[in-house]
């Protein structure tokens, strides 16, 4: 039960040290590539940039990503590699315009919230060009932003060059790791083909039903160039599945070893970036403290999820006591007691929405892994996690700094760190400093902006949608669990995670609604637009504000290190940081969690009916 999470974490920690050092070497330009690549670097390098120029380049390139992505998806019906099969006789059509907007913003912000289903709605061309390209570049964007911020914090005269940084991350980091991972995944059984879906006559004749003329229907097995998407989906903490079921689908995740590999590839860069940070600021002890704080939060998340989900049966099947329900203004209701169903869950825990081949604790572990680092890939349906286990993924996304996404997670932690330094400074009555630079009003304003945008973007829209039919008509589960679905969707959007309590009705599908396998959800457009906007704001404000903060710190004079300086490389400081994260996080989000998963756990189960 505990061996799998332990193996995943231990392997990644061991790998993170050499990988982190390699990353620092690349980002500091100490690696000399072959002549051709050097020539390309010279073409890309537009010269040293200050924080404003760096931010401008970043925003310009993201605008280009939006235009490019929108064009690819909108032109899907006429572009090549649009395979036809009996489920989609004319190939894949054009998605509805709002779904394209949502999908494009979702992929360029590294969120990969999917209001579509990969195998139903995207052609192989869209998967290979739109999805894969965005996965490489959007992951690199966060990576570059972090690097620039680190350069500012250590007081470099300029923040580097954005275009050069992007190239280095994509080609020297992501590509080699992706090829290696891709080969391992294919060895485990992940398809890599351009052939259309396989159509097989089922072994039990008529198992899939019969056609009008009485002939048995075949099973149509969607496949495709999956192995090209999967490595970067995880290495870039993107999380957008080739198939609707994401990494729960046997073609995305065929064995328990592929599942292990996917967990490690999700975690490797977020772990390594802390090591890189320590190398780049030449203060590895400070980085180790941050690493330890993040790790302790992460271990708690995993232990909580596994103990609530893999060690307990699904409460839907267990005996439930009688409950008297008193709501002011409504007649009192008595819920009759229920006997436990004769179901044997020993050793398996809650298996609704889980795959067996990964082992019993794999679903809960993956849910913690994928939300801690804002990947958003799933190997079980989070909607069907036991009520209290559902807290783990939500907390991971709400704190958004337990390692966090590629680059941006550490940036979030640095914001908490600045706030922690500020609070500690106030308590001992000294001017707060960080890495030898004074933290003053301007820095605090920027830090608060970056910190508060996240809860505002989550709680505001959640309240709005929960109050209106937009949310109520979209939920797939009753009562508090329905609320959790809405809360999860906006948390996932704002944290740029992309996983979901996927029962939520937010899919429109093809613009031509008659081509869809299922009828479009009634408020799909509202969800497309609202989450699209949340993703954009939740992405760029927490990148630009810390860039400005770092730029402002870089311009300051270094104050000498004295006996009165608050040290940031001690265990005491680790506790200050941990306390800040927990205090701020729980003040912001506990009420919402109480209304969702906690209320669901307290019952009644089942709710209504």
């Amino acid at each position, binding site marked *: 039960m505990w061996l799998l999470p332990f193996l995943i974490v231990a392997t990644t920690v061991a790998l993170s040290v050499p990988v982190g050092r390699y990353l620092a070497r690349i980002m500091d330009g100490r690696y000399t590539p072959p002549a051709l690549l050097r020539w390309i670097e010279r*073409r890309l390098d537009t010269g040293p940039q200050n924080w404003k120029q760096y931010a*401008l380049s970043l925003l310009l*390139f993201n605008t280009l990503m939006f235009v490019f992505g929108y064009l690819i998806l909108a032109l899907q019906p006429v572009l090549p590699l649009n395979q036809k099969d009996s489920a989609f006789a004319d190939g894949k059509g054009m998605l509805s315009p709002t779904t394209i907007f949502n999908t494009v913003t979702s992929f360029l912000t590294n969120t990969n919230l999917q209001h579509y289903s990969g*195998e*139903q709605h995207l052609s192989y061309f869209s998967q*290979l060009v739109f999805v*894969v*390209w965005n996965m490489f570049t959007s992951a690199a964007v966060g990576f570059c932003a972090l690097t620039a911020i680190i350069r500012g914090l250590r007081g470099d005269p300029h923040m580097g060059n954005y275009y050069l940084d*992007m190239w280095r991350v*994509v080609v020297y980091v992501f590509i080699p790791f992706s090829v290696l991972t891709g*080969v391992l995944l*294919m*060895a485990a*059984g*992940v*398809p890599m*083909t351009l052939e259309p879906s396989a159509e*097989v006559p*089922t*072994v*039990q004749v008529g198992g899939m039903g019969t056609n009008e003329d009485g002939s048995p229907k075949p*099973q*149509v*097995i969607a*496949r495709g160039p999956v*192995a*090209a998407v999967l490595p970067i989906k995880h290495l870039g903490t993107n999380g957008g599945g080739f198939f609707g*079921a994401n990494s*729960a*689908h*046997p*073609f995305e995740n065929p064995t*328990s070893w592929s599942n292990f590999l996917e967990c490690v590839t999700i975690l490797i860069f977020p772990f390594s970036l802390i090591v890189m940070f320590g190398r780049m600021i030449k203060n590895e002890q400070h980085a180790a403290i941050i690493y330890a704080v993040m790790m302790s939060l992460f271990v708690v998340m995993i232990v909580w999820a596994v103990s609530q989900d893999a060690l307990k049966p699904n*409460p*839907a099947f267990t005996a439930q006591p009688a409950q008297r329900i008193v709501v002011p203004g409504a007649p009192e209701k008595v819920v009759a007691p229920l*006997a436990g*169903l*004769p*179901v*044997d*869950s020993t*050793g*398996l825990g809650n*298996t*609704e*929405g889980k*795959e067996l*081949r990964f*082992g019993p604790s794999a679903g809960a572990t993956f849910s913690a892994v994928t939300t801690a680092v804002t990947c958003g890939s799933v190997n*079980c349906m989070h909607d*069907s996690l*036991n009520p209290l286990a559902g807290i783990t993924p939500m907390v991971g996304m709400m704190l958004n700094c337990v390692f966090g996404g590629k680059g941006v997670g550490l940036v979030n932690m640095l914001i908490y760190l600045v706030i922690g330094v500020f609070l500690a400074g106030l308590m001992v009555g000294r001017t707060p400093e960080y890495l030898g630079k004074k933290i003053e009003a301007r820095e605090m304003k920027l830090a608060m902006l970056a910190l508060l945008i996240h809860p505002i973007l989550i709680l505001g829209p959640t309240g709005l949608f929960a109050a209106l039919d937009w949310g109520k008509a979209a939920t797939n*589960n009753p*009562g508090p*669990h329905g609320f959790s679905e809405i809360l999860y969707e906006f948390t996932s959007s704002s944290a740029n995670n992309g996983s979901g309590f996927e029962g939520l009705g937010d899919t429109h599908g093809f613009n031509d609604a008659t081509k869809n*396998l299922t009828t479009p959800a009634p408020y799909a457009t509202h969800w497309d637009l609202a989450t699209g906007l949340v993703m954009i704001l939740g992405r760029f404000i927490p990148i630009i504000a810390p860039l400005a903060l770092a730029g402002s710190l870089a311009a300051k004079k270094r104050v000498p290190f004295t006996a009165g300086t608050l040290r940031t490389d001690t265990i005491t400081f680790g506790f200050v940081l941990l306390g800040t994260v927990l205090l701020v996080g729980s003040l912001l989000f506990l009420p919402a969690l109480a209304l969702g998963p906690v209320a*669901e756990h307290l019952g009644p189960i*089942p*709710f209504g*009916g």
Partner: protein
Amino acid sequence: MKNHLRGNLILLLLTVVVCCVLYPVVLYGIGRVLFPTATTGSLVDDKGNDTQGPARGSRLIAQPFTGDEYFWPRPSAASYNATASGGSNWGANNPRLRDRVSQQLGPMVVYKTGSKSAGPDRANPRTPQQDIEAWFAAMPDRLASWASDVSVGPQNWAKTDLTGDKYGLQGDFIQAWAKAHPEVIGAWKKDNPTKTDDPKPEDLVGPFFASFAKAHPGKWPGVVEGKDAAGKVTKTIEPVTADSLLVANFFDLWLSDPANADKSVDLEPVPVDLVTASGSGLDPHITLRNALSVYQLDRVAKKRAKTPADFEGVKQAIADLVRAKSFTPLSGLTGEPLVNVLELNLELDAKGNF
């Protein structure tokens, strides 16, 4: 600005070439050469061998099996449609989840062999289904209270065979009944002043079942097959006392009735993976515990044994085969042994005789 334009365009062009052309081509080439079967979808032919040509299925994708001669895969929220993967996404507090599981359990569940409820006759033990039907008949208006207290089951009954907006036998039956009782439609409209259209069959299940219970106390509206004058098979709804849908719908109420506590403890527990849907809807495995349970192995052996006397031998042979095909995830490090259902069933068919 010219600098930015140059940087952006070169970066776009080069990353597209590297990420969308060179990288997939390299992976495709390696995959074709080293793993030709896996990269095309792990397809198998009817003998269970790897193939890239005409296939009977994929090792990695669950196929629907409902026949008694086959092991059954886990339930699928995607109806085993491998172009529309997905789970139920039902939370623990969703009444549909408990309803789905108890509907599946009701017609299937058995008493533990040798238990008090199963009775002394081991060859013909008493079944929970008989007890549920007797319990149902013992109180004339159980149907009415079920329809008014339970939300999922009665509505689903009305929607059996619902495709698009066309109702099947059950829905039409309610509609015909409603036409004969216009006062019911009037009452519904009075209760739902905001709705403009006529009530659907599932909206009327409460009064419908209440009226059915009054007309046929202790009976269930079952589907009865008959033949018309031309010899064609017809299906009608008739009051019956024994029916698998009766058992499915009333299992949970029977179980939770304190009067049946002594019987419910004698039920043979069902392995949880037999009644829970997987995340993808395509999980190709079941646990070994599930395969060897009375709910799978005994059923398959009974069907494949030529005479009742062969049963024990066939059961043993199949159990050996199942054990031989089982494996434990992570090279044996985690979880419990699993069996691939499609591979197992193909092998059973290939063996033919036991």
